[in-house]
């Protein structure tokens, strides 16, 4: 156990931006705090960095309380959403910043900078100024700069969200590889579940200042704790009461208060137990996406294999793919 947050609260005046949050993070792990914008996740990250004073609770590292340790003595590198490179320094000087603070001999600095730039795939960028780089390149430099002195913890604030979709996907893969290679412990906050899945192995879902669910990433994903969490994790629809009971029965599962369905939870199958009428059909590169009206359930999403000929108004049969749904155990707090 390395980083531990115990009942941490950060208040701005009367509102608690972070409300009684407890989290642990072990060496070498990557933990993603996932939540909508304004849920307090960035404040949480800044509190860990030592940039926000705590109103209550404590943050500790290896059991030692950090409350008296200023940011620069914590050894946690913080990587901002937009990189925050020092505009007046070249790429190499940016990466070398922390090394120079520690008066590292210049030969060692040069070697380390070269090593880091090749790690992030930016060989030969040494003398460029941040202003001349693309968004993705800037993020990579920021990452190299954060990794330079092998921080005991790296804090990432939406590291990919400022980038466009293709770049994001590519850099996500790179970033995960780099964190694994360097064996760095990382705490990441994001509002994008794709980003969380791409980078983290543990997940904490945060809402209105509180952590509502935490655990291994596939666990959380399979068993969201409530309706809102399910929708936030990318489930398309949540069915309740009778509708939930019907779908769960068709799947051969025990009845529950509610069930969250992904868009591919219902599949067109001539032998399926559910009857429905197609309302919309749209062909995508992988499958045909449908919106269907299921008897006594209502409008839900469904898919059909490519090549299936369905059009609005058709009657179809559906089966339930149990790996694409989540049974919700408890009633959402109103």
């Amino acid at each position, binding site marked *: 156990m390395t980083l531990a947050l115990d009942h941490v609260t950060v208040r701005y005046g009367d509102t608690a931006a972070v409300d009684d949050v407890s989290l642990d993070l072990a060496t070498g792990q990557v933990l993603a705090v996932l939540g909508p914008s304004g849920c307090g996740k960035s404040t949480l990250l800044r509190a860990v960095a030592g940039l926000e004073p705590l109103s209550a609770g404590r943050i500790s590292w290896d059991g030692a309380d950090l409350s008296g340790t200023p940011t620069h003595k914590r050894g946690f590198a913080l990587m901002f959403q937009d990189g925050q490179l020092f505009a007046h320094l070249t790429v190499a000087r940016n990466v070398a910043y*922390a090394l120079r603070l520690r008066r590292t001999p210049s030969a060692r600095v040069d070697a380390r900078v070269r090593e880091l730039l090749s790690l992030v795939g930016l060989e030969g960028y040494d003398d460029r100024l941040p202003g001349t780089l693309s968004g993705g390149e800037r993020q990579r430099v920021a990452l190299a700069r954060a990794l330079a002195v092998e921080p005991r913890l790296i804090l990432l604030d939406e590291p990919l969200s400022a980038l466009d979709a293709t770049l994001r996907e590519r850099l996500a893969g790179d970033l995960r590889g780099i964190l694994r290679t360097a064996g760095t412990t990382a705490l990441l906050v994001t509002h994008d579940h794709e980003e969380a899945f791409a980078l983290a192995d543990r997940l904490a879902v945060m809402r209105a200042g509180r952590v509502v669910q935490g655990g291994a990433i596939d666990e959380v994903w399979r068993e969201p704790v409530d309706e809102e969490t399910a929708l936030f994790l990318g489930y398309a629809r949540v069915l309740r009461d009778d509708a939930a009971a019907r779908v769960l029965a068709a799947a051969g599962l025990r009845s529950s208060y509610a069930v969250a369905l992904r868009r591919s939870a219902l599949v067109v199958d001539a032998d399926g137990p559910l009857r429905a009428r197609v309302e919309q059909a749209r062909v995508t590169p992988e499958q045909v996406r449908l919106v269907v009206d299921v008897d006594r359930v209502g409008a839900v999403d469904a898919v059909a294999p490519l090549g299936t000929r369905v059009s609005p108004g058709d009657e179809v049969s559906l089966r339930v793919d149990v790996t694409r749904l989540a049974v919700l155990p408890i009633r959402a707090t109103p």
Partner: protein
Amino acid sequence: MRRILGLLLLAAGPVLVLGVLFVLPVTGMVAEGFVADGRFAPGAVMDVLARPRVHRVAWFTVCTSGVATLLSVVLGLPAAYALHRLRLPGRATVRAAMLVPFVLPTVVVGVAFRQLLGEGGPLGPLGLDGTPVAIVAGLVFFNVAVVVRTVGVAWESLDPRPGQAAAALGASPWQVLRTVTLPALRPAIVGAASIVFLFCATAFGIVLTLGGVRHATVETEIYLLTTTVFDLQAAAALSVLQIIVVLGLLVLAARLRAVPDPTAQRTVTPARAVRRGDAPVVVATLLVLGAMLVPVLGLVLGSLRVGGEWGLGNYRALTSAGDDQALVEPVTSALATSLRTAVDATWMALLVGTLVAAIVTRRSHSLAERRVRSTLDGFFMLPLGVSAVTLGFGFLITLDQPPLDLRDSPLLVPMAQALVALPLVVRTLTPVLGGIDDRQRQAAASLGASPWRTLLTVDLPVAWKPMLAASGFAFAASLGEFGATSFLARDDSPTLPVVIFRLLGHPGAMNYGMALAASVVLAVATAVVMLAVERLRVPGVGAF
């Protein structure tokens, strides 16, 4: 091409005004030196520049200005930080109070320092009266505000995140300051320093009251040469020297001040609560504030002493003409004249200044257009650096014949003061107007707004407060203007600073007491105006 023509047409008014009221007098003054007996004779000017006294004066100017600039920056930086980044109690009032010395009439500052350092003053035993140290102290007192303002505004809008990123990389607060914050502030610091140097090098009232004849700078030397020695050639030679140096500095300042994109959102970082680590900065700020209050307090206390007793006699005497009929008119009527003059100067400066700011901030569509705009921008900044004495004397010798016989016009003094205030107005308004994204106007137009309506709905809502603030600033500057006014004010209707200077020149305890009292009145008037301006919360006022 049509855009450029339109631009030039729009600029014609202000250019004409500046041409007649500024370029003509200044060139007239300069020509005075180069033309002898109707022939062009530059040799005499060269001879003047070779005089040992001129060398001494030039060196003295550079040295005092350099030292004063350095001190202003060193003292101003902690205060800029404390007053713009920390949530200190009463910081709005302190910020306003710090701006007061800058608009305080130079004569008043001179009087305050003499009262403090002179014989019988609280610091009299130090023997600093009439020494270069006193001059430097006066210059610093006057200019710290410029540094606090200019750097403070930049500091306030500085993104705190790079600093936090550096701290997260292990940089201590001191290292963050040295490696991230100061490099980011460098344009503002160097810009402020160059402007302060400019103000110091052309300072007139302070140096004249504190240095007299013994310690002359180029500016006071020009005054002495024209008014007492009548050596116009030498005066002109010094004017030319000064104009060249000032032009160079202005170009430098403009370069250092350049921002990549004026429409980029100006973020204001909320001030944070004071922590224990801020103690040195807060203490330094309080010391600077205290040092600035001492001369003012000395002035106020001095004005309340009459013949060794406390009393309001000096103030009551303001309705009289002083001992030995030192004055033609009582001080109270001079105050009325000052206020009237300042009103006229303000509307003139605001009218021309708004037009200039609007012209120079519109987005250029071609390189040629941008060149024209930036040339105009530089042109209208000229009065900032050219000696008010040169200007005033130039007015006298060039605007005395029809069709430009303005010598007896009641608008002569306001016009000269408006010119001095013009750069202040332009500097306050350009960042505001430049900060309006042109696309806002285009959006308004595309929604069916006429140009007039666009001006009313897009520009005016943003600009009215800065315009009001600029008016106040111009009003205060005009109230205290001394350099040009000392030449132009007629004997029967002097302004308050001129009267104060006359009172100082006449012997008699009562005259001196009256000068102190009149200084307090003038200082209060300017301070009230500046406090009102500060209430408008326009960030750029007083920043260069």
